[in-house]
Every structure is written in structure tokens, then in C-alpha cells.
């Protein structure tokens, strides 16, 4: 079994709604890599404590809502999803 090694690379995260206001941009780029959604979440909470004050914060990977245990792969499309309010 081959163990995939994560490369250090720029990861771009799409931001919407309140997360865009908190981080101050519509894309957040990290020069680091995270094994799981949960690790990325921890990093973001450390960098931007206001994110923890949101009613909820989902993370979408490749346009699917992701669990914290999901492993990230290079090239994944990642987006922060604060509480939705369509309709």
C-alpha cells in the first residue's frame, strides 16, 4: 500500500458571507498543508478567532459538506460555509 505524502503547497480556500468579512477577502491562501478538514479547522480558528463565534461553520470539500475526519488531497476545492440563509 502506497502512502501518499502531502506536499507543502499553496492551498486556496473560498470564503463567503460572514467568513469573507471576518478574514477580509474572498479567497484565503495558506502556504501549508493539512491532513484533515479538522486540522484545517483548528488552524483557521487559531488564526481568526471570530470564526468560532459563528452559529456554525461547515467546510465544503469539492462542493460537498465535509466531516472533520475527511482527509484532504492536493487540488481539493475547499470553501468555508457559514450559516446559510437563502430562500
Amino acid at each position: 500500500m502506497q502512502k501518499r505524502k502531502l506536499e507543502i503547497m499553496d492551498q486556496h480556500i473560498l470564503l463567503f458571507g460572514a467568513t469573507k468579512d471576518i478574514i477580509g477577502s474572498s479567497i484565503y491562501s495558506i502556504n501549508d498543508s493539512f491532513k484533515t478538514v479538522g486540522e484545517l479547522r483548528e488552524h483557521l480558528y487559531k488564526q481568526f478567532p471570530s470564526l468560532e463565534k459563528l452559529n456554525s461553520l461547515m467546510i465544503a470539500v469539492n462542493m460537498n459538506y465535509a466531516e472533520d475526519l475527511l482527509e484532504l488531497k492536493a487540488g481539493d476545492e475547499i470553501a468555508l460555509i457559514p450559516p446559510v440563509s437563502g430562500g
Partner: protein
Amino acid sequence: MIKIEENINVEQVIQSVSKSQYGGTTVFIGTVRVHTKGQRVLKLHFECYEPMALREMEKIERQAKEKFDIQEMSIHHVVGEKLPGEKVVVIAVAAFHRKAAFEACEYAIDTLKETVPIWKKEFFENGSVWVAAHP
């Protein structure tokens, strides 16, 4: 038909589900309210993670067709700036049996409000706020 657009034409949405073999069509139309929690709303701004929003809307259509005995469903949602009274979302469902059409239409709007990545910012005279973002 699943669509995100600037302005919704209700007749077109209804037309998109109506065929002469179905007896009943139910429609939900959501509009911008002029008041929310006692404050006068000047306008709303809708932002959207469009490719994912379309996928989630398609998922709603697919799941509604699995759960309920319906034949057709269309969901249209706006983006951009909207004034009080303007349409935000239009959902139309066609079915042989109206009970299923009502249930599916309600399911669709309830689920859309929970899962589709669209955000609205309310603008008041003294500021603006992303709806539901904070306690």
C-alpha cells in the same frame, strides 16, 4: 429546472413543470419582507457559492422525487441585490396527486434554507448583517 439568476419569472418556472398529463402544480414563492424583527429592511444582498448551490438544489430535486410521488420540480433562486417585495426563490412541483406536490414543495423550501450555500445580508438604516451568522 434548477437555476440561479438575477430575476425570476414565475410563469416560466410554472411552465417548466407543467405538462397536460399532471393534474396539480404547487408553487412556493419567497419574497423579501419589508420588516424583520421590527426593523425596516432597505434591501437584501444575496451571495452564492454557485456551483455548489446548484448541486445542492439538484440534490433537493432528486431527493424530493425519491421521497414523494411527484413528477417534476423546478427551483429558481436569485442572487444580487433585492428590494422588499421582490422575489427571492420560486419552487414549482407538478404531480398526479396534489398531496405529494404540497409535501414535496414544502420539503424543498425547508431543505433549501438548511443546505444550499446562499447567504443574505440585510441592510437597515443603521447597518447591515449576514442573516443567521451570529447568535
